[in-house]
């Protein structure tokens, strides 16, 4: 019995209550949020693997045991999520978005509960708490109408996911009579050889929920909306931490080694259920990338980018090999770090420029140099460029895929990676590079708090890039706890894939030496002088008489027009082929799907009723 576990949940709840009281005083609200996060992180230091806590709850005459249990995976997730939350809340102490601190604390409570919970009732309750709190959080975006629509959409998706999970939980309970997650998984793995289809069905119910939360194809539709229209200070948390709940859930069920015993193998020794899942991940990665290339709203762009990265993670963990799981969790961590950083810098940029449209920004690097560098390190990480942190995990993912002899999936992932470089550069250029508009002459760099945070994040991204061992060791423990052989992590930074090795510090040293040489050559050669941005091909002459302004020279509209032309046939297929279809049948189905996704009040009501029916059936079966 370790009562410190209960504090991890109780503290944020208390903090949330206090913050809710002072919600009118914005700074106080933020301060309490930050302090609660920091305290929770402090409490977390006393938590160790293997601790557990449980208490009984009298529910309708039966006693329900709520259990908290700390596994290797949970403590890893707890650390990264709370640490990131602390950084974020520290940063957002003085921002101007309409995020409510108490909602974030509610999510934190749910977050800790989800990661520690070892019973499905608690898990489900925490999941719901997290879902509703985040739905309400999304409501406070800059554009009220759109954020309301996004929140509604998100709510529908999240509720339907919850029904699915609810159904799954009660089915399992009826079969085993217990709510304990570990016991249920043990039960499932014992019957997987006998009734594979049953197990598949039950697990799918859970996986739908997790895929919705992680935004995996085909349940990705809520992601861009919710990310783009949520409050700017909340989006980092939404993207960095909350998308990982789905991954966590999948990892819980992965040790079933899914259908290895019940189903034949597909290519490369991967069970075919996993194989399908790998492809779902790959499709998500490619889809997210391609759609991100065409976005003009920067938050939407990075929403699709998150989609793409989670696709990578899913593809890697679905392999369920030591390299795959390591790569997947490592990438999930890296995604948390760099995408959190990117969204934090976006928060800074959007609050200063007042717009999230890429075509309206530009040239901010002279005004916000530190934010610019943070963003640069962020996109370098996201593009997987050594020595920053995204590289190791992407490299490992390729290794894992190749090890299973899946070249086509790997090629597509590589395409997604190159495409990632494209959209990242598009965002980078359109925000920071290019011509500075006169509208932004008075833009200032972030405050001291912001600078500290940005320096810290830059340091973190470089540190975990150069020394991946610090993060690969705990991941190794997780892999071991799943019953697999962990990757040999020789020294900090020496990563052994199955196909080749990299020694990341060596890359960093090589880069350091070559940059020194580059700088020496640069300063030895002839002098240069600095000129203004107007002194380029217009020769310092701004032909205002012709109605042209500096912004006219900012090239950010239709940035990848040739690519759009290239993909135009595919977009046509989507609209014409899918919805309008070749016959009435397709038409009907198409319009039905359209109804669901477009969503009017009747459809939502219909959803609620269907959910209710599922609920009743589940109850009856129980």
């Amino acid at each position: 019995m370790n009562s410190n576990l209960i504090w991890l949940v109780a503290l944020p709840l208390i903090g949330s209550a206090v913050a809710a009281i002072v919600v009118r005083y914005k700074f106080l609200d933020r301060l309490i949020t930050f302090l609660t996060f920091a305290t929770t992180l402090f409490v977390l230091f006393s938590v160790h693997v293997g601790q557990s806590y449980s208490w009984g709850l009298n529910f309708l005459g039966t006693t329900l045991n709520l259990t908290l249990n700390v596994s290797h995976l949970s403590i890893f997730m707890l650390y990264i999520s709370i640490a990131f939350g602390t950084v974020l809340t520290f940063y957002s102490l003085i921002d101007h978005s309409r995020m409510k601190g108490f909602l974030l604390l509610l999510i934190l409570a749910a977050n800790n509960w989800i990661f520690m919970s070892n019973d499905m009732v608690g898990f489900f309750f925490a999941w719901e708490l997290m879902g509703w709190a985040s739905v309400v959080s999304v409501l406070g975006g800059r554009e009220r109408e759109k954020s309301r629509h996004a929140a509604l959409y998100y709510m529908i998706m999240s509720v339907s996911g919850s029904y699915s999970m609810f159904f799954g939980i009660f089915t399992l309970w009826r079969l085993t009579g217990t709510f304990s997650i570990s016991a249920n998984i043990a039960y499932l793995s014992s019957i997987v050889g006998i009734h594979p289809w049953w197990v598949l069905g039950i697990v799918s119910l859970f996986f739908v929920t997790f895929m919705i939360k992680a935004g995996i194809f085909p349940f990705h539709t809520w992601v861009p909306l919710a990310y783009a229209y949520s409050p700017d200070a909340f989006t980092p948390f939404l993207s960095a931490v909350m998308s990982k709940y789905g991954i966590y859930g999948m990892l819980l069920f992965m040790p079933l080694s899914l259908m290895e015993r019940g189903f034949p193998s597909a290519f490369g020794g991967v069970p075919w259920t996993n194989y399908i899942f790998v492809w779902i991940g790959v499709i998500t990665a490619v889809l997210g990338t391609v759609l991100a290339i065409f976005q003009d709203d920067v938050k939407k762009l990075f929403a699709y980018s998150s989609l793409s990265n989670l696709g990578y993670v899913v593809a890697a963990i679905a392999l369920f090999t030591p390299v795959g799981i390591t790569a997947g969790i490592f990438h999930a961590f890296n995604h948390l770090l760099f995408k959190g950083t990117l969204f934090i810098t976006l928060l800074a940029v959007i609050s200063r420029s007042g717009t999230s449209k890429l075509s309206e920004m530009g040239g901010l690097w002279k005004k916000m140099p530190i934010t610019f560098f943070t963003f640069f390190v962020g996109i370098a990480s996201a593009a997987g460029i050594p020595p920053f942190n995204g590289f190791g995990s992407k490299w490992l993912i390729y290794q894992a895929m190749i090890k299973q002899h899946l070249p086509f999936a790997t090629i597509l992932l590589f395409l997604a990676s190159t495409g990632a470089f494209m959209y990242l550069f598009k965002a980078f250029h359109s925000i920071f590079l290019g011509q500075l508009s006169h509208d932004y002459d008075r833009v200032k760099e972030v405050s001291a708090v912001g600078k500290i945070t940005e320096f810290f994040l830059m340091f973190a991204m470089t540190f975990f890039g150069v020394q991946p061992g610090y993060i690969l060791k705990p991941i190794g423990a997780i892999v071991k706890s799943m019953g697999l052989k962990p990757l040999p992590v020789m020294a900090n930074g020496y990563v052994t894939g199955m196909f080749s090795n990299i020694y990341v510090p060596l890359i960093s040293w090589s880069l350091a030496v070559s940059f020194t040489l580059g700088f020496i050559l640069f300063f030895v050669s002839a002098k240069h002088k600095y000129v203004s941005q107007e002194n380029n091909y217009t020769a310092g002459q701004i032909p205002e008489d012709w109605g042209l302004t500096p912004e006219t020279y900012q090239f950010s509209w239709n940035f990848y027009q040739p690519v759009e032309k290239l993909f135009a046939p595919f977009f046509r297929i989507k609209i014409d082929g899918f919805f309008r279809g070749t016959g009435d049948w397709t038409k009907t189905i198409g319009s039905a799907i359209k109804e669901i996704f477009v969503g009017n009040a009747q459809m939502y009501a219909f959803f609620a009723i269907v959910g209710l029916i599922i609920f009743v059936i589940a109850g009856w079966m129980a």
Partner: protein
Amino acid sequence: MSQSQWSELVNYFRGRSMWMLHYCTGCGAIELPPVMTSRWDMERFGIIPMATPRQADILLITGYLSIKTLKRVVYTYDQMSTPKWVLGFGSCTINGGIYWDSYNVIDRLDKYIPVDIYIAGCMPRPEAIMDSFIKLREMVQKGEAKGYEKYTKNYEWYKANQDHVFGRSEPVLRKAEEVTKSA
């Protein structure tokens, strides 16, 4: 290695690699394709055409310059980094050529920017252009082509000449009162 030896070396290399920005204003531009292509092939002297003033060492003005064009030429010249040289091509740059009494075409280029070598002729043959390249190369290697230094030293004079053309604030001719401003 002493200072002078070093600059000698630098000048040698500069002479061996001269990149050209051709500012094609008049009819003379048609003489350049044979110079660039297989008939005369200026690349064998390390001279290649460049697309922007940033990259260029030679500014080749191929023909007459109206006032508006001259303004752009001056901008272009200012955008080039030192060392830089100007070649005036054809009679038009020397004395206005057939446009000698035009109301809109300047007569002598080196009033406005320093010209290192003039190529006479209307139009000069490609051989003349090649010859001017060789001359320029000899001058550069001997350290004689110093037009850009002249420009810096006598900037006031050049600037005054430029402003005289660009910045007119009153009519040039005395019959100003007869101008039908009401028209």
